[in-house]
């Protein structure tokens, strides 16, 4: 046991029953549940520290500002950013990616410039580029995936030739594939492109060091890492953020406004127009403390163990029926298992599992181009986090047999 056996009791939501069964939550790649300490930290903020930030001169406003900026410092430390100024708070990873597209890319890309992404991207790392393509005529290039669910990098030099940006997921939300980001950063830089990373599925599960990854931009969201919904992060190197134009205009993001114009604030506040989500930032800071106390190395080890167990038991019990997408080697993937069960539609599989109290996601997982490559219109997906254990997976394996009871014909 690399994580405390009693860890489930830290998460009040998990202690309930559905359809007569104890909840088995296997949808953390979608959103994670929250430990009591995070819920308490947010309540404590509203009970003891709430005021608008960076504005009031009174002691309470100082306390609220310290809460926000303290959370920013925790994020910076958690991903080994050089300074808190490199941490821009957003609503979620999608907004972070749109900020990157609307600010940096709109200012630096023109017609014919290429952005390279991969076939395993989430829509959040596809649609903003489609939008820029429609508006500015940029070119969008795709790194294909191979039959084992890895990126096929054999043609990367040609794809990167003349490209301005390589933007790739660190871990696929469908296949679980861990991509070689440090290597991709080197290749991008050698070709004169910048490197952006969608780390939404990575930062919550794997020790993250943005400097070691060698990236220029990295986005993730709080709600997948035990923090509340409504807080996301864009990390970028300070010199890039300094040079980027503002994203949204309004209060907080300015140093001065006159009838003739405005002077933008310093980073990161230049990108944070309006009253920010302080309680959510506090929740993210507390979630980071919680994960750090567990130890991110332990979190990763726990998930590799559970993933290995899941892949083994699912295949042993249902090997003739189940197809699990993505790398077969647990060390090469995260705890995200997308599967097809016989010819039963994933929506029906998820429905039957729900009847046993098991929550999995069915659908295209916001990755329709990948679904096309996999020649599937949907998969069922079981995904793991710190509070899952082998008993959860045993229940999944058992409950899948009930699918046969209804759909075997």
């Amino acid at each position, binding site marked *: 046991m690399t994580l405390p056996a009693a860890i489930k009791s830290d998460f009040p939501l998990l202690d309930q029953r559905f359809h007569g069964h104890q909840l088995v939550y296997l949808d953390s790649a979608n959103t994670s549940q929250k430990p009591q300490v995070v819920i308490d930290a947010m309540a404590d903020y509203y009970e003891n520290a709430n005021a608008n930030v960076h504005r009031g001169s009174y002691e309470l406003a100082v306390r609220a500002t310290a809460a926000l900026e303290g959370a920013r410092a925790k994020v910076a430390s958690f991903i080994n950013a050089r300074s808190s100024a490199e941490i821009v708070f957003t609503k979620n990873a999608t907004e972070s990616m749109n900020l990157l597209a609307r600010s940096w890319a709109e200012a630096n890309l023109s017609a014919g410039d290429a952005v390279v992404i991969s076939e395993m991207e989430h829509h959040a790392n596809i649609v903003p580029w489609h939008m820029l393509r429609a508006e500015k005529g940029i070119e969008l290039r795709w790194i294909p995936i191979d039959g084992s669910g890895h990126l096929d990098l054999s043609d990367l030099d040609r794809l990167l030739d003349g490209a301005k940006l390589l933007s790739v997921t660190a871990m696929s939300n469908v296949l679980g594939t861990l991509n070689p980001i440090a290597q991709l950063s080197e290749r991008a830089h050698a070709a004169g492109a910048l490197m952006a990373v969608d780390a939404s599925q990575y930062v919550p599960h794997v020790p993250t060091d943005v400097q070691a990854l060698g990236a220029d931009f990295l986005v993730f969201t709080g709600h997948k890492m035990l923090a509340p919904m409504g807080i996301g992060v864009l990390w970028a190197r300070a010199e890039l953020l300094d040079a980027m134009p503002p994203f949204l205009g309004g209060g907080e993001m300015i140093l001065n406004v006159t009838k003739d114009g405005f002077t933008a604030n310093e980073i990161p506040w230049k990108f944070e127009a309006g009253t920010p989500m302080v309680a959510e930032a506090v929740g993210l800071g507390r979630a980071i403390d919680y994960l750090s106390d567990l130890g991110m190395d332990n979190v990763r080890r726990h998930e590799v163990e559970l993933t290995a167990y899941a892949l083994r038991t699912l295949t042993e019990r249902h090997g003739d029926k189940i197809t699990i997408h993505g790398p077969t080697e647990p060390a090469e993937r995260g705890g995200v298992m997308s599967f097809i069960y016989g010819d039963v539609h994933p929506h029906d599989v998820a*429905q039957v599992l729900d009847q046993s109290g098991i929550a999995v996601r069915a*659908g*295209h997982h916001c990755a329709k181009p990948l679904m096309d490559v996999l020649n599937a*219109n949907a998969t069922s997906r079981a995904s793991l986090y710190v509070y899952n254990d082998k008993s959860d997976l045993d229940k999944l394996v058992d409950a899948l047999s009930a699918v046969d009871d209804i759909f075997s014909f």
Partner: protein
Amino acid sequence: MIGLEDLYREIILDHYRTPRNRGELETPPARRVEGFNPLCGDEIIVYLQVDDSGVIDDVAIGGQGCSISQSSASMMSVAIKGRTVEDARRLIAAFKGLMSIHETEIGGDGSEAALGIELEGTTEDMKLGDLEALRGVVKFPIRIKCATLSWNTLAQALDEAAAA
């Protein structure tokens, strides 16, 4: 407690296993309309052929999806084939009414009234019994969109045919 047997009725599974009117029609004379459920990726293709007198003389269903969307499309095809466009529109309204019954009314027989529509001279062979099996879907609100996908696609096909 709501059980899976409320959703996966035998008649539904039968239409899922053995979908009726599955395939394609030549376009033209048929009209081809696609419907998508962005939540789950389901895709339904309705081929509709309406003759000069306003009778749906042929219908075919393509695409892929879950048991509920596929069986609903199959039952729909049986229900509308050979019927007039007006009958089909009334059936769409009745079916969508059934699917929009509020949860608090589930368990009563309000749904019977919704489906007990009078289709002049055709009621007895309109296969209302098959469609009635889908009423359990309202107890699983997430699945309502699965059941209505083909019907919304049919409505779009009828609208396009009327505008043409």
